[in-house]
């Protein structure tokens, strides 16, 4: 028993930190309907500002706390509300999640660049001295850092519960989350209510970040700010246990997770697959996945829909639907010329380092096409595409190393392995949709990072060599120009497959499912069947792209396919356009080219490329078709207007039609049909 308490008690402060995150997530969701994945970024900001003021500028810690938690954090929350989420209050869950993802990626990358500080965050204590033991609980010493975290968390949670239950403001918050527009019609200032919710939750995030500092032992590094995402994952697991409804349950669940994590460290052996480290890494996955699958109440969080949702405008039409038929021929030939120009240039005069970047862009485009399939066409947000890519790469590498299997064959086997995994995920998560499905895929990505990629037959956490292929006399290891050709062929094949699916019955069925799952089921369309098909194809394509990417780099490790890349990939594709093949290719090429430009000309600003895309993702709610598609639509509209003006001028020049004016028709001529 004493051993148990020895391990359990030190886990409580960590748990309190998770609980603060969970409580903040619940509060934001209840008041604004946003499942704020940017919470990790907000926590990081609070911690960074506090640490910067105390350690770099030697500001008094209370002043630093006031600035970081009570000034900067609420301002950040207000900025989120004012400039982002207030603009998209009635956007879909996916749009809100993507916007939050953009923030999660952009902010932690941007802040160290802005403040030119990338040193470790120190173990700065807040309130009580972390180096001093204040009391002993059942023989376990409790230092100042642990004590202050626990006391502050419990006090804040109690105050929040009281506010939500017993004040008019709490009642207003509950009304606003049911329907912001209905609440407004009843005279509630829903904008003000939501803004306050953002302020409060942002304070909680900042507080969680500051309180994490003394617990981290100096291991939080701005150059890897997504460590705070792990904190977020524990927080959202606790919030999921509480069905994103109950603050007390979120609090208890957070503390419980902290204790559980410490008990694992204490009790499990340090060798074998079930080592303490492995299981500790996989803990968020296991608990999050379990809660998502078995907490039935959680599934109802997306069921209630806004009664005024019918007021929303329909989704924008794809650019191709509004294209003037006269533009078809010039655009088709223009596209062919660009492709030929690209290939000829890459084969002849483009410098080697550009060839490598372009090859990388083509390979990334294959991975990004998998997002076109699953998110653009299926409408399901997958946050584990990089894990599928890693599965493909490690399988190909290991098969080449141990069985001497040709790497292209290995890549196909890797794609098959990824496809099978995708099918299993689709089947296991059959009852989940929307946000919950996205979180489940995130849980799988964490599982892959923490456990799967540490298995000895999948790299064992070490560097894996994925050799360049050789087909007959063509050796793809001699420079990247040959490899670029191979990547181009694979991309074209994948693009054609996606186009065929898009144009066929599957594409129509998926559009039906996106439009109304209920009506689709009433026609006999099985959501599960379609989901398994698309998850399988998408995961397979990501696996193939991942294997090619591994082969391009030759040496890859689990760090090459971390879950944060899954988040970044989704953000990048959604920014450019997730519904079209062009969007995925634009995303792949621009990501690779932007990376090269930054590395070559702005070496001090590495890490800037995800920021640019992440800020772009924040436009998703306004332009769900993607920036490129949106611009294309604008351009086509402009050309169509110009052509119409030209037609009108010609008609005026030619004089009146002797047959008289023709009656307007609503649709097209159906006689041909």
């Amino acid at each position, binding site marked *: 028993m004493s051993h148990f308490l020895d391990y359990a008690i030190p886990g409580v402060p960590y748990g309190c930190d998770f609980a603060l995150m969970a409580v903040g997530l619940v509060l934001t969701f209840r008041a604004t309907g946003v499942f704020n994945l940017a919470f990790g970024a907000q926590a990081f900001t609070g911690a960074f500002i506090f640490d910067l003021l105390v350690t770099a500028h030697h500001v008094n810690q209370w002043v630093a706390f006031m600035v970081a938690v009570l000034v900067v954090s609420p301002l950040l929350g207000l900025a989120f509300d004012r400039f982002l989420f207030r603009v998209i209050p009635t956007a879909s869950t996916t749009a809100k999640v993507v916007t939050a993802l953009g923030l999660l990626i952009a902010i932690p990358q941007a802040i160290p660049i802005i403040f030119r500080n990338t040193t470790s965050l120190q173990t700065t204590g807040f309130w009580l001295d972390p180096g001093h033991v204040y009391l002993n609980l059942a023989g376990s010493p409790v230092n100042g850092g642990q004590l202050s975290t626990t006391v502050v968390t419990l006090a804040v949670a109690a105050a929040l519960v009281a506010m939500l239950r017993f004040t008019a403001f709490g009642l207003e918050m509950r009304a606003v989350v049911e329907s912001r527009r209905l609440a407004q019609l009843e005279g509630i200032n829903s904008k003000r209510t939501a803004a306050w919710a953002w302020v409060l939750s942002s304070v909680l995030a900042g507080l969680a970040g500051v309180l994490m500092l003394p617990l981290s032992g100096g291991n939080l590094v701005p150059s890897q700010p997504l460590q705070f995402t792990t904190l977020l994952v524990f927080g959202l697991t606790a919030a999921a246990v509480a069905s994103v409804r109950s603050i007390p349950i979120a609090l208890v669940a957070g503390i419980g997770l902290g204790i559980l994590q410490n008990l694992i460290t204490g009790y499990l052996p340090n060798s074998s697959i079930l080592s303490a480290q492995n299981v500790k890494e996989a803990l968020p996955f296991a608990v999050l996945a379990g809660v998502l699958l078995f907490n039935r109440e959680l599934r109802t969080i997306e069921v209630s829909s806004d009664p005024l949702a*019918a007021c929303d405008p*329909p*989704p924008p*039409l794809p650019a191709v*639907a509004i294209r003037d038929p006269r533009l078809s021929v010039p655009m088709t030939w223009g596209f062919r010329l660009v492709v030929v120009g690209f290939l000829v240039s890459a084969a002849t005069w483009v410098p080697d380092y550009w060839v490598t970047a372009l090859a990388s862009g083509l390979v990334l485009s294959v991975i990004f096409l998998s997002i076109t399939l699953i998110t653009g066409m299926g409408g399901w947000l997958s946050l584990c595409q990089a894990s599928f890519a890693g599965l493909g790469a490690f399988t190909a590498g290991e098969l080449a190393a141990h069985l001497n299997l040709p790497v292209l064959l290995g890549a196909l086997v890797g794609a098959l392995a990824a496809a099978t995994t995708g099918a299993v995920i689709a089947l296991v998560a059959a009852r989940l949709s929307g946000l919950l499905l996205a979180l489940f895929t995130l849980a799988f990505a964490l599982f892959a990072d923490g456990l799967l990629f540490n298995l000895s037959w999948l790299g064992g956490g070490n560097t894996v060599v994925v050799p360049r292929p050789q087909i007959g006399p063509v050796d793809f290891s001699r420079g990247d120009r040959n490899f670029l050709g191979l990547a181009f062929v694979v991309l074209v094949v994948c693009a054609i*497959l996606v186009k*065929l*699916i898009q*144009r*066929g*019955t*599957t*594409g*129509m*069925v998926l*559009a*039906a499912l*996106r*439009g*109304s799952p*209920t*009506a*689709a*089921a*009433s*026609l*006999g*369309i*099985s*959501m599960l069947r379609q989901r398994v*098909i698309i998850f399988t194809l998408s995961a397979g394509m990501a696996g193939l792209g991942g294997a090619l990417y591994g082969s391009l780099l030759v040496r890859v490790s689990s760090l090459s396919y971390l879950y944060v890349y899954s988040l970044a990939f989704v953000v990048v594709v959604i920014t450019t356009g997730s519904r079209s093949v062009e969007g995925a290719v634009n995303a792949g090429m621009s990501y690779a080219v932007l990376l090269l430009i930054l590395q070559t000309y702005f070496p001090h600003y590495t890490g800037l490329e995800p920021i640019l895309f992440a800020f772009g993702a924040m436009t998703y709610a306004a332009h769900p078709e993607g920036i490129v598609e949106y611009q294309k639509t604008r351009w086509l509209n402009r050309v169509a207007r110009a052509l119409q003006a030209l037609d009108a001028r010609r008609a005026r020049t030619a004089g009146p039609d002797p047959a008289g004016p023709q009656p307007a*028709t*609503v*649709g*097209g001529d*159906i006689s041909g*049909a």
Partner: protein
Amino acid sequence: MPEPDGERPLLEVRSISIHFGGIQALADVSFQVAPGEAVALVGPNGAGKTTVFNCISGVSRPDTGSVRLDGHPIDHLSAARRARLGIKRTFQRLEVFPELTVRDHFLVADRVSRGDGRLWRDLLNMGRPTTAELEAAVRVAGVVGLPDALDTPVAALTLGRCRLVELGRALAGRPRLLLADEPSSGLDVTETAELAAVLRAVQRDEGVTIVLVEHDLDMVAEVVDRAVVLDSGHVIAAGPLSQVIADPVVRRAYLGRTA
């Protein structure tokens, strides 16, 4: 409970009950519908009519009781499986596919009902609509009065025309049993009369069995032969429409008085 004469009923609802939280939405509801028959399910708001449709189509599962099609229980089947057995429906709250055109609505319903449209056909570029499929879509559009809107995205149609798309989509899926949930909602008097004629024609000429939920009793009288009246989740009357309307219990449920 009056039953269809002679033959085995196509649809049999046996003592279904369902509650949502503390609310008893349906209590021991039973009725039968013969093949080719048109039956109305009427009652005041909140009577449980749409809930009955949800239980038949598989959107909701009753707590107790059973739904049978052709004498076989279908309670264990998903909504999609039931649709493939021929149960098609329209919705009280409009459910269309905003990204698809009217023609696509009919095509997708047609293909799914035939079990066509496998992935391998798409991958072999065999997913384009055939002439027969296009003709079928034109025919359905003609039946529901949308021949001019086939290539229009439904997002660009009015509410009333979207209702017609819903009906056309259900018809394109070759229904054996059509559950029409307030199809005249959003239509004007003329359109309602035309819709009633379409439903009657579908029932008489194509032998489609219809269960109609509708508040417009004039339209109900145009389409159905028999009615089942629900109030607060209970069946309070069933029989020929004229008889049911004259029933004092029904009048009290609708009007709060017997006269």
